[in-house]
């Protein structure tokens, strides 16, 4: 009796599986037939844009701030008359820190909402997940976070730093400070491993020694041994590519081991004002970060940005590099559209080269060839107030070079 019932359930389950498989095939064919790209719906007096960020899950802490900055930029543009005479209407979607969801929501924004451009994504994993969606539909994504480079897509504009605008200047700063040896600590996934490949190539070409390289699984909180290794190696500086919570445990352990910014400085590339606040200033005071923007960056454009952000979201909310890059990306898109005189994606892309914007970080220029932007690199020091104060900058915007083609030492990479 049980056997028969078991079989029936099995048969039912198999029918379901078969049906699901058929449905999947069906949707694939439809997609294939309509891969010509969907043009944005601009028939009314508004134009829609997509906001695709994680509002829930592990990345929400960071991505919500990016969403807030994008919203601020849209409001500014709307109150100044909009784009090509049309008001921008944001359509928000939650990527939920889940890469397949990002791809699904991107598809929805492009095909159902028929948005003119999408702003968002944070992790490289989410960007890689949506990349084919934007390429297939010939739609535009503006990606606002520093990343590991070695990528280029005709349908993505990268407004965060690529490695030659953040990691390489960070190394140059250390070299100028007389650092002869480095220790690399990172999370065990694509960004730190790629970044460390680049760092090792740079070090070799510049007479620096990499004394050790250690990776901790994402979310790992046990740094006793890594700190011991770092300490006994006695490097001049530590280059930190840890992401997320691990930084908390790492810096707590670092301080308990008696290591400080004075004895062995740590340069981090994933800790901005928001993270400093949550890790705790007492653990980070005096440590270095490499970015393109800080809340303390001087200039009228930044004063205006910081004041507007705090007025809208609260005086205790800091601004950070990815937020600034996201804010800038909306303004850049507006300038591209106005130069092109249309929302048509191909025309907007053609118009992009040479577009400039007086950003909070200083003047930025779109490089049409790579679709990255020229940015000024900045090294900063964490102060007792939790803000980051600039100690060095590159003086002028650095031309983006995602594949590091202009650096002889980077020949064997990519």
């Amino acid at each position, binding site marked *: 009796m049980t056997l028969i019932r078991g079989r029936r359930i099995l048969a039912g389950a198999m029918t379901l599986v078969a049906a699901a498989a058929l449905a999947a095939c069906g949707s694939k064919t439809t997609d294939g037939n309509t891969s010509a790209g969907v043009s944005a719906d601009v028939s009314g007096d508004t134009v829609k844009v997509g906001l695709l960020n994680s509002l829930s899950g592990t990345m929400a802490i960071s991505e919500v701030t990016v969403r807030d900055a994008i919203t601020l930029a849209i409001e500014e543009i709307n109150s100044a008359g909009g784009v090509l005479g049309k008001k921008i209407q944001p359509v928000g979607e939650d990527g939920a820190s889940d890469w397949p969801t990002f791809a699904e929501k991107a598809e929805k924004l492009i095909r159902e909402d028929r948005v003119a451009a999408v702003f968002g994504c944070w992790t490289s994993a989410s960007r890689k997940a949506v990349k084919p969606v934007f390429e297939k539909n010939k739609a535009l994504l503006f990606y606002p976070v520093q990343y590991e480079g070695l990528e280029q897509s005709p349908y993505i504009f990268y407004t965060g730093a690529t490695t030659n605008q953040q990691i390489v200047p960070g190394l140059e700063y250390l070299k100028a400070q007389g650092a002869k040896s480095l220790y690399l600590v990172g999370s065990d996934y694509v960004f730190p491993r790629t970044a460390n490949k680049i760092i090792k190539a740079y070090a070799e070409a510049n007479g620096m020694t990499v004394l050790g390289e250690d*990776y901790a699984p994402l979310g790992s909180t046990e740094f006793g041994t890594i700190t*011991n290794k770092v300490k006994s190696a006695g490097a001049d500086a530590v280059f930190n590519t840890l992401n997320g919570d691990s930084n908390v445990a790492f810096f707590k352990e670092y301080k308990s081991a008696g290591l400080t910014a004075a004895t062995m400085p740590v340069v981090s590339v994933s800790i901005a004002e928001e993270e400093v606040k949550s890790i705790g200033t*007492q653990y980070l005071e005096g440590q270095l970060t490499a970015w393109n923007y800080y809340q303390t960056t001087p200039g009228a454009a930044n004063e205006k940005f910081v004041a507007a952000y705090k007025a809208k979201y609260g005086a205790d909310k800091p601004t950070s590099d990815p937020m600034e890059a996201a804010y800038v990306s909306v303004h850049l898109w507006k300038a591209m559209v106005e130069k092109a005189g249309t929302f048509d994606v191909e025309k907007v892309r053609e118009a992009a080269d040479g577009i400039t914007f007086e950003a909070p970080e200083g003047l930025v220029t779109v490089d049409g060839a790579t679709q990255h932007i020229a940015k000024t690199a900045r090294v900063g020091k964490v102060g007792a107030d939790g803000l980051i104060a600039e100690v060095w900058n590159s003086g002028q915007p650095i031309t983006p070079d995602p594949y590091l083609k202009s650096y002889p030492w980077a020949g064997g990479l990519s």
Partner: protein
Amino acid sequence: MTVLIGQLFTGVSIGAVLLLIALGLALTFGQMGVINMAHGEFIMAGAYTTYVLQQVITAAGWSLLVALPVAFVVAGTMGVLLEVLLIRRLYARPLDTLLVTWGVSLILQQLARDVFGSPNVQTRAPELLTGNIALPGGITVANNRLFILALAGGAVVALTLALRLTRLGRRIRAVVQNRDLAAVSGIATARVDRTTFFIGSGLAGIAGVALTLLGPIGPTMGTNLIIDAFLVVVVGGIGQLKGTVIVAFALGVLQASGEYLTTLSVAKVMVFVAIVAFLQWRPQGMFTLRTRSLA
């Protein structure tokens, strides 16, 4: 040499953390045969208790001291509720307790997310515990690690004494060795079970307080700890405090040496391989309980 001693201390301190998170489990899983997957969430409850108390008591040192007994009671109470509402109905079906408590752990994680938000939170450590003691030869011993070591040691001693010397301890041991015989001898086994669960879960709360000194506090922190805790208890020998203590420190030192010689991920694999090999050789764990029960 310095490195060696430093690593040894790291190993011992990892062991102390393992011991703290496994101690309560050794009591509830080891002595009662209940597989409590929500044990990690009791640890989380202890950590969040510290966080909440710090909002009220701003002096970090005092809030930590107050957190220890409060977290014990908070986590202990959660344990008793779990025992009364669900587990006591499943004593005869240990595998079902696994599923039920796993469900409870998911619910507790979501609850933490709703109450405290999904981003992790931090507590401020007392100034005294952020420093270190410098020994001759350049060896430094971190104060927070020493504190955790002392806490783990204290908990083991207290638990051992309680089990050996108190009336309650004798009852717990009697129930463990032969539940039916204990019952007919006039011991209220249900009440003993509840008390055991209170103490075991309360110890998880203490572990949670200790962990706030090392890393972030988040809804999923328990998931990362529960596996380590089970490993320690199973390898130590179910129902054996002695085994739990020895194995916790052994695994800590093994992990630290492995990490030093290779990498963190490889060291984790090494520890797992060592455990599997050990359990092939001694499936019953390091120590076994001799009982008269047939189970």
